[in-house]
C-alpha cells in the first residue's frame, strides 16, 4: 500500500506541559483513520502538528518520503496538499461562500477565475451548498458553514484531509448533514484523518482507529479490533461509556 503520511516519534510540549509523547503511526492512501480519545488527550494537537500549525518539539512527519519538519519541503505547498477542516469552521468572513472556495485555487494553484469558479461550484454542489454561493459566512448555520469549509478544503484537491472535531461545535440536528458529506467522501476513497467524538460514525466509516490517552497512542488497529475486541483496559473503559 502507498504510505503517504508517516509520523515518527512525534512529541510536543507547551512549556513544561507534555501534550504529545512519542507518537508513531502512518496513513496509507485511501485510509480513513479516526483518532478517538478523551478531551485533552492531545488529539487536536496531533492534527495541528501534522498541518504545521504547531511546530513539533521533536520527531518527524514524513509526507511522500519527505520530512516536512525540516526545510526539505515548502511549508505552504505542503499545507495546500493537506486539507484541514476546523471545529470552528474558520471560513473567511470577508469572502462569500463562492470566493471562500476560490481564494486558494487562484493564489496557490494559480487557476484562472473561470476555472476556479467552476471547480468551486462543483465541490459546493457536492456538499449541497451550491445555491448559497452569494451568502456570507455570518448568514449561514453551523452545519452549512462546516459543509462550505469541507468544500473549501476539497477545492484545493488535497491528497489527505484532516478533520479536527468537525461536528463538535454543532447542535445534534446539524451533525447529520456534515457526517453525511464525510461519509460520501470516505466512500469515494478520499484519504481522511478524523478526530472525532462521534463513536458510531468512527466505527462506521473508518478502516483504522487510533485511541489516544494522555498524549500517547494507547491502542490502534482496525475498526473491529478497537471497537469489538479492545485489548487495553483503558480503551475498554473509554468505549464502555459510549455503550449505554
Amino acid at each position, binding site marked *: 500500500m502507498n504510505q503517504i503520511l508517516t509520523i515518527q516519534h512525534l512529541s510536543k510540549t507547551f512549556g513544561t506541559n507534555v501534550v504529545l509523547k512519542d507518537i508513531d503511526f502512518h496513513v496509507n492512501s485511501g485510509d480513513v483513520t479516526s483518532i478517538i480519545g478523551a478531551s485533552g488527550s492531545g488529539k487536536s494537537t496531533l492534527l495541528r502538528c501534522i*498541518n504545521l*500549525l504547531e*511546530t513539533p518539539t521533536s520527531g518527524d512527519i514524513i509526507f511522500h518520503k519527505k520530512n516536512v*519538519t*525540516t*526545510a526539505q519541503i515548502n511549508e*505552504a*505547498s*505542503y*499545507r*495546500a496538499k493537506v*486539507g*484541514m477542516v*476546523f471545529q*470552528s*469552521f*474558520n*471560513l*473567511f*468572513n*470577508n*469572502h*462569500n461562500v463562492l470566493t471562500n472556495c476560490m*481564494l*486558494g485555487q487562484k*493564489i*496557490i494553484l494559480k487557476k484562472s477565475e473561470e476555472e476556479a*469558479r*467552476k471547480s468551486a*461550484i*462543483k465541490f459546493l*454542489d*457536492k*456538499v*449541497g451548498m*451550491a*445555491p*448559497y*454561493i*452569494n*451568502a*456570507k459566512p455570518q*448568514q449561514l448555520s453551523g*452545519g452549512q458553514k462546516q459543509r462550505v*469549509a469541507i468544500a*473549501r*478544503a476539497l477545492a*484545493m484537491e488535497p491528497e489527505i484531509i484532516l478533520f479536527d472535531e468537525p*461536528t463538535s461545535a454543532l447542535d*445534534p*440536528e*446539524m*451533525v*447529520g*448533514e456534515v*457526517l*453525511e458529506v464525510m461519509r460520501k467522501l470516505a466512500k469515494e476513497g478520499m484519504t481522511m484523518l478524523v478526530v472525532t467524538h*462521534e463513536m*458510531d*460514525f468512527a466505527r462506521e466509516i473508518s478502516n483504522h482507529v487510533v485511541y489516544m490517552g494522555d498524549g500517547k497512542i494507547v491502542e490502534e488497529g482496525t475498526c473491529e479490533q478497537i471497537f469489538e475486541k479492545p485489548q487495553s483496559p483503558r480503551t475498554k473503559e473509554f468505549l464502555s461509556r459510549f455503550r449505554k
Partner: protein
Amino acid sequence: MTISEMSFIGRMLYIVNNYGSSLLKGAGVTMSIALICTLIGCIIGFAVGIVQTIELKKNSNLAKKILLKIVNIILNIYVEFFRGTPMMLQAAFIYYGSAQIFNVNMGMWQAAILIVSINTGAYMAETVRGGILSIDIGQTEGAKAIGLSHFQTMIHVVLPQALRNIMPQIGNNLIINIKDTCVLSIIGTVELFFTFKSISGALYTYFEAATVTLIIYFILTFTCSRILRHLENKMDGPSSYDLATTDTLALTSGLNHFKTKKGSK
C-alpha cells in the same frame, strides 16, 4: 461704513465677501493635505502593521531572525518618536533642519505632506496592529491551512477585515488631520488657519474671523464623518443574499438537495 461700525453679522459677511476666495483656498489646502496624508499614513500604518505581526518559526534561519529584529527595533523607534513628540516641533525640526544641515529647501507642499504623513503613519501603525490582533486567530489558521503565506493571508483575509474594524479610527485620524494641519502654519503653509491669521491680522476682527473659520472647519469635518459612515455601511455589504438557483454554472441538474433533518445515526 468702516468695519469698526459694523454689527457682528455685518463683519462676518464682510469677511466672507472680501476674503471668501482665500478662505476657500485655505480650506482646499487643508483638505488636500489631510486627505493625502491620511491615505499615505494608512499605507505606512498597514506596512508597519504587517511587519510587526510576522511570527517567527523556530526553524527559520538566523539571518532572517536578525533582520526582522533590527527592522522591528527601527519601526518601534519610529512609532514611539512620532507619537511621543508634538507635530508642531517635528515640523520645525524637519523643515528648518533639512535646510540647515542638508541644505535642502523643501517646498511648502513637500514639507507639509511629509510631516503629516509620517505622523499619521505612526498612529496608524498602532491602530492597524490593534485591528490585526482583533481578528480571530482562526481566520489566519484557515488561510494557512490552504497554503497561504503570511503576506497572502494578510492581504486577502486579515487586512480587509481589520480595515473594516478600524474604519472609525481612520475617520478619527482624518478629522484630527483636518484640524491639526493648522500647526503647519509654523512653517508657513497657507492653509485654513494661516488664512484666518492673515484676515484677523489685516482687519483686527478676531472674533468674527474665528467664527467664520470655525464654521468652515466644522463643515469640513462633519461632511467627512458622514461620508465615512456611509462608506462603512457600504463595506458591510448587503444584509441578505439570493439563492443562486438559476446560475447556469451551478450545474443545476446535479444539484444535491440535503435533508437537513436527517439524524446522525
